[in-house]
Structure formats: C-alpha cells, structure tokens
C-alpha cells in the first residue's frame, strides 16, 4: 500500500454565506493520478484552491506529508512540495515565457533554476522557441503548457491541475493528457480536476465524483467509467 501523500478530511468551505464544500474527504496516495469530476459549480476548483491555501476552510483538515496545512498562507504551501496549475491558466501575460518559468521557481535557490528551465523546455519544446515572447502573445494551448511548466518549476511532489483541457482544440486536449501521463510516469503524483470526465477517468487510478459540494461516488477510474449513474450524468449516456 502506497503512502498517503494528501489526506483531506471533513472539509467545509464557505463563500460568504454560501456553503460551497460540504464536508468532503478524499486522499491522494504517492504515485497516483486521482481525479475529481463533477458538473460546473460542484466544488472541484474550490477544493483545489482550498488545498493550495488560496481559500480558508471553515472546518476540516488538509494533511500533506503528515503536516496539517490549514492556516498556512498560500505562498508558504508551495515550499511544502505541492503546486497548483490554476483554472484559466493564469500565466503572467506581461511577463516573458522565461520570466513566467522563473516565477514558478520563486521559492528555489537561483542556481537550480536554469536546469529546471531546461527540463521544462525538453517537455515543451514550443516554450523554448518562444522563451522571449510575452505570455500574452501565446495561443491558448501554449499558455496551458506554460502554466503547467511554471507549476513544474517548483519541483512539486503533488501537482494539482485545474481544468487543463478547458477551451482547447481536441488535438491539443490529447496532447495535454499525454503530458499529464508523461509527468506521472516521471514520478509526479497528480490530482486532476476535469470537465472532460471520460478522458480524466481513463488515465486516473482513482476518482471522486462531486455534486453540489459533496462526494457522491468514488472508485477506481475503470469502475467509474462503467458506472451507470456516472455514465448518465457525465459521459453522455
């Protein structure tokens, strides 16, 4: 049995008076790909943002590598070894590709940065071609690659990806999923949030189904792919 890397227990998150996450629990073991699927507004992104420290939970615990992260500010969580590649990419549009990558390595000593940049360039040759360009001039797919590369720059043990395929052409979606598999093969544990449930379940070791802030179903990726209620709700019948 692999070691538990991230364990979220009984998490409750509010936006003002709106109860967005209603007591969810899930865990990610070392070396797994785990996915959270669900409709818009089910609380998938909220869950990731809370784990990354951008939102504060009202109650519950988030234990990463045996350390409770609740109350630690977001900028200190990266150093613990997790990175979030946020929804909508959120690359720094006015910074160059290279500067974006440098920001990803903000918490790491300067001498290690150049090697990591080369590593990201190997993974995403397109970024190398465009390293001087400001990120605002990149295409959507390239921006997604940059966002993923930027998250990798912190050398995370756990990489959280929020809707990496959103708004991309089908061929690019395939490419992004190949990259996720590739990252996983290189030893990065992955927590993936996706609207493209079929693709996400196909690569996931385990999956959780969220519905209006609650986990309503869970199991291995294969199990859920053939689960009738999941098929009906998320895989188009």
């Amino acid at each position: 049995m692999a070691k538990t890397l991230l364990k979220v227990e009984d998490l409750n998150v509010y936006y003002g008076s709106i109860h967005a996450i209603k007591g969810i629990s899930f865990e990610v073991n070392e070396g797994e790909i785990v996915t959270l699927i669900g409709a818009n507004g089910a609380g998938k992104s909220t869950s990731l943002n809370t784990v990354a420290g951008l939102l504060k939970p009202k109650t519950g615990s988030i234990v990463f590598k045996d350390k409770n992260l609740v109350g630690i500010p977001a900028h200190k969580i990266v150093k613990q070894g997790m990175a979030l590649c946020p929804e909508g990419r959120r690359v720094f549009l006015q910074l160059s590709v290279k500067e974006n990558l440098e920001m990803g390595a903000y918490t790491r000593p300067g001498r290690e940065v150049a090697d990591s940049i080369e590593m990201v360039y190997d993974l995403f040759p397109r970024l190398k071609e465009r390293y001087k360009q400001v990120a605002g001039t990149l295409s959507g797919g390239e921006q997604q690659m940059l966002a993923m590369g930027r998250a990798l720059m912190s050398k995370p043990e756990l990489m959280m990806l929020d809707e990496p395929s959103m708004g991309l052409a089908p061929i690019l979606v395939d490419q992004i999923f190949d990259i996720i598999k590739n990252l996983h093969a290189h030893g990065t544990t992955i927590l993936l949030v996706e609207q493209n449930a079929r693709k996400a379940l196909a690569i996931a070791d385990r999956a959780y189904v969220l519905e209006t802030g609650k986990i309503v179903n869970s199991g291995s990726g294969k199990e859920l792919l053939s689960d009738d209620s999941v098929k009906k709700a998320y895989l188009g019948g």
Partner: protein
Amino acid sequence: MLNYLISGISLGSVYAIIALGYTMVYGIAKMLNFAHGDVIMVGGYAAFCAGTYFGWPAPVAVVFSMCICTILGILIEKLAYKPLRNATSLAVLITAIGVSYFLQNMALIIWTSNPKAFPNMANFIPSIIVGDITISSTTIITIIASVIIMIALTLFTSKTKMGKAMRAVSEDKGAAQLMGINVNATISTTFAIGSGLAAIAGVLLCSAYPNLVPTTGSMPGIKAFTAAVLGGIGSIPGAMLGGILLGVLEKFAQAYISTQLSDAIVFAALIIVLIVKPSGLLGKKIQEKV
C-alpha cells in the same frame, strides 16, 4: 527660451522622480497613494533637521531622510492600506487622502507653519555657464538623479527576482501566491522604494525651492500624479516622460502665457492627451487572447 527649457527640465525631473513613486505603487498595489506628496514633505523636513539642527553633512542628511521616508512608507502601508486590501478602491482612495491630511497636520504640530529655509543640498558640483546661459548645479544634479533613478528602476523591475515578482503581483495576486511569492511583503517593498524616492525628490525640490512648509508636498504631488497619468500610469519611462513634459510645459506657460494660468494649462494638456490616448502617452496596452 533655452533658460526656460532648462528650468522646465529641472522641475520636470523632480516631478518625474515623484511620478516614479506614484507609478510603482499604482503598478503593483493598484492604488493611488495620494499621501505620496506628503511623504516628500516629510523627507524635506527630515533632511532639513539633519542638516540644520544636527549639523550633519548633506549626503548623510539625504540618507537619513531616505531612511525616515522608507520607514514612514512601510508604516503607512501596514497601518492604513493593508487592512483595506480587499476593500473597494474608493475606500482606499479616501484613506489615502486622510493619510495625506494626517501627515500635513502632524508636520504642522511638529514644525509649525513658519517656513523653514532649506539649505541647498544639491550644489556639490560647479554650475555650467555656456554663453549667457547658466545651468545651476542643482539643476544638473536633479536631472542626473532622475535619469539614474529611472534606469535603476527599469533594471530592477526587469532583471531582479524581486522586480519580476513585483510585476507578477501587479498582474495576478492569486497566481503570484501560488508561485510562493509573499504578496504582502512585495507590496511593502514597493512602498519602501517609492517612499525612499520621495525623500530624494523632497531634497531636490527643496534645494531648488527652499521654502519648506507643511503643504510643500501637496501641489508637486498632484502635478507628479498628473505626470504619471500623462505618461501612462504604471509605466516607468512614461512617468519620466510625463514628468519632464509637464515641467517644461509649466515653465513655458509661466513665461509666455500667464503665471496664474500655468496650472490650468498643464491640466488642460492632461485632459487633451487623455481624450486622444486614454492610457497615457506610453501606457501599457493590455494584450489578451480570447
């Protein structure tokens, strides 16, 4: 004619240094720090006290003044603006105006309204005389200082880790946090830099116009804000260009049109520029892919 141009560039250089402070803070913290002009005034008084009361040499007095203003800037940000980080921009703006009056009134209590004769601290090189034109040492120092500051700030924001982090924070605070950037510390640093620059501006301004009163900073502060908007707020070269244009325009208006009307002419110029180019002369074009 040339005389007016030179004195305009000199005044404009002071505006430029103040405008750089405005633009830095606006660019990164997305707020208009209307107390910036009054930090200049405090810088002037700090240097005045150091030079006249304590008898310290000019360079020490300038460094002392920069230290005071840097601390003041950090304090203002911590006490007045940080609690409002998620408030509406109007609340922040009103607070900034409040801080401005607070500083002016504190200065009034400490130093009274009697003008202080500021000793010239920017005349340590000889003046240049070409034909019948004299370029005073203060003018030369002011222009050199503003150019050095602009270049240094440009290099800082484009080359250093902290500078890049500032640009990242200016664009997306949330994403910056995800990178491990401490947003509060970054904003604090911005205020520290802007206020340190205000001290230099204060010394240069008072060296050229040695009549130091608690409201010394307010008009130059507003003019420099205008300069920053004129050049494109958030842009470092824009602040520089806006400052110098404004200074020259003001001096020419005073010389050839009317002393009383010069301010009106300056602001009219701002309005015209903003009608033609709302983002200012060198304002950033926001590129976004949809």
